[in-house]
């Protein structure tokens, strides 16, 4: 169907390789990608605010175990990611999610064991079925190869995650900013934290099928961290994170599709590569305003101090010059 193409400005359309809008695989990829990017932006913002990026990363790596186990068992990777994620969330909740040096170590060890298991599952599955593509699909994702029958499930999981965030919005904001204050106000901090972990686990499962389990945190953390560098307002950050995520995913899909026509033709570049690279670029770009203001600061500092004339040190019995604004807290 070429009807959608007429809505697109002709210059933009000319950048896209032919067949883009008519390809079913592309449509599925775009649908899933946009949905996942929105959820990842929202949940990712809270993840960064709560300082739980490492938890997201752990879910990703343990998702590898789940995905490869699912592959071995003959079921779709999405369910492997979801089950592994929920199990990991439960374990984290039981052990306590606070990031401390000792915890980092234990988490690292568990991830190592999990990845080792993933290696085993992949090996066994590959030997059993004599196919070799599983490693790439599970670990690095292949969004163009997702069957369209998966879309309703992706939609469902995305809605569940967003619903959890929407319901928990206020208590989540409060307990992320200050758990003690939230507890004092009667917020069930532990429960809110546990439910958030569930939303996080589901989100990581979604990003895992999009760009692969070991890359999944990039889509979760990158746009969110970039958004938080650009704005202080939580609501604006949520919206920006989703927007940046959607932008990188859509652009990534477009570029990957186009790369099929780049020389040497017929061999497309992996989508995940584009998305991850664009996310990194977005994050680096978000640091530019802060960099510029730091340079302005040091210049201002020199000017300001050059301008204030005369000594104003007070020794015993010394004199004060000029008015002083008091900073008494």
């Amino acid at each position, binding site marked *: 169907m070429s009807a959608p193409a007429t809505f697109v400005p002709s210059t933009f359309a000319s950048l896209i390789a032919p067949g883009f809008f008519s390809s079913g695989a592309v449509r599925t990829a775009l649908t899933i990608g946009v949905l996942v990017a929105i959820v990842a932006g929202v949940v990712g913002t809270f993840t*960064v605010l709560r*300082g739980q*990026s*490492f938890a997201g*990363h752990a879910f990703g790596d343990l998702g590898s175990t789940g995905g490869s186990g699912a592959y071995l068992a003959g079921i779709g990777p999405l369910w492997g990611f979801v089950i592994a994620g929920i199990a990991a969330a439960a374990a984290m909740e039981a052990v306590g999610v606070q990031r401390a*040096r000792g915890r*980092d*170590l*234990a*988490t*690292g*060890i*568990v*991830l*190592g*064991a*999990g*990845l*080792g*298991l993933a*290696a*085993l599952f*992949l*090996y066994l599955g*590959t030997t059993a079925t004599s196919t*070799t*593509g599983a*490693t*790439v699909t599970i*670990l*690095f994702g292949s969004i163009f190869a997702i069957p369209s029958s998966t879309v309703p499930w992706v939609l469902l999981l995305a809605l569940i995650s967003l619903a959890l965030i929407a319901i928990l919005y206020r208590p989540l904001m409060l307990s992320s900013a200050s758990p003690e204050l939230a507890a004092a106000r009667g917020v069930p901090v532990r429960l809110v934290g546990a439910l958030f972990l569930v939303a996080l686990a589901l989100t990581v499962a979604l990003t895992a099928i999009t760009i692969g389990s*070991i*890359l999944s*945190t*990039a889509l979760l*953390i*990158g746009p969110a*961290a970039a958004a938080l*560098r650009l704005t202080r307002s939580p609501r604006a950050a949520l919206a920006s994170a989703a927007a940046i995520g959607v932008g990188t995913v859509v652009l990534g899909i477009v570029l990957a599709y186009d790369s099929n026509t780049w020389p040497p033709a017929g*061999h497309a*570049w*992996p989508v*995940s*590569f584009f*998305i*991850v*690279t664009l*996310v*990194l670029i977005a*994050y*680096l770009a978000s*640091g530019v305003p*802060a*960099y510029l203001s*730091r340079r302005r600061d040091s210049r201002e500092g020199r000017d300001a101090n050059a301008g204030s004339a005369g000594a104003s040190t007070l020794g015993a019995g010394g004199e004060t010059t000029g008015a002083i604004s008091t900073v008494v807290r």
Partner: protein
Amino acid sequence: MFQGFMIDTWVVASIVGVIAGIVGFFVVLRGSSFVAHAIPNGAFAGAAGASLVGASTLLGLGVFAVLGALGIGTLGRHGRHDVVTGLVLAFMLGLGALFLSRTIEYAPAIYSLLFGEVLGISHADLVPTIVLALLCAIAIAVLYRPLMLSSVLGEVAAARGVRTFALDLAFLLLVALATTMTVPVVGALLIFSLMIGAPAAARALTSRITVAMALSVLFALISVWAAIALSYRTNYPIGFFVGTISAGCFLLGRLWSRIRGGVA
């Protein structure tokens, strides 16, 4: 398993054990497990790139591991450390996937780079690996004191004239070097667990620095040797054994702590 073609592997494995044990000691002391997780992924991209252009794997590993280390070090200075490390990690993996996708051997190559390969080290790389290991050892000996001080008391070190940023970078480069040597055999995704499991077990057994470092080396050696032997026998991937044996080391260490009731 000790026939001629395996000798190289055993030699490199021993080197890997020693270096991973020593560098891992500092990784755990500084709480840099996540960084140790990230830098090998840079190495992965380098090896992939090398295989694409037909260059030496070791060279590709080294160059990209160093680039990844420098990227994490400099970008992490003003941004959030976690975020930068995670994004650079992902970017490197994506790059590696891109490189490998252009080669014919996409899937098997990815698999052995990520999860290890018993015959992963070529004879031509043996001497360079030994040289790198010696460089690593010398670097650690030279930097030992300021590295210890800045790892434990960063501000005090800075006040005493230690160039802490340069030292942080030097440490990241050390991890990059250690990674370069170990990835071909153990695999990029699992090398970090070798670097944290052994020291974690060692510190549970003793409070003395030199003893802890020696034990760390010992446990790393045992882990690697066992992993190679088991992988040779069963054909299961080395990474699987490294991951599980390191976890075992860690658990044994914790068990020992419990039994002793908290070693003084």
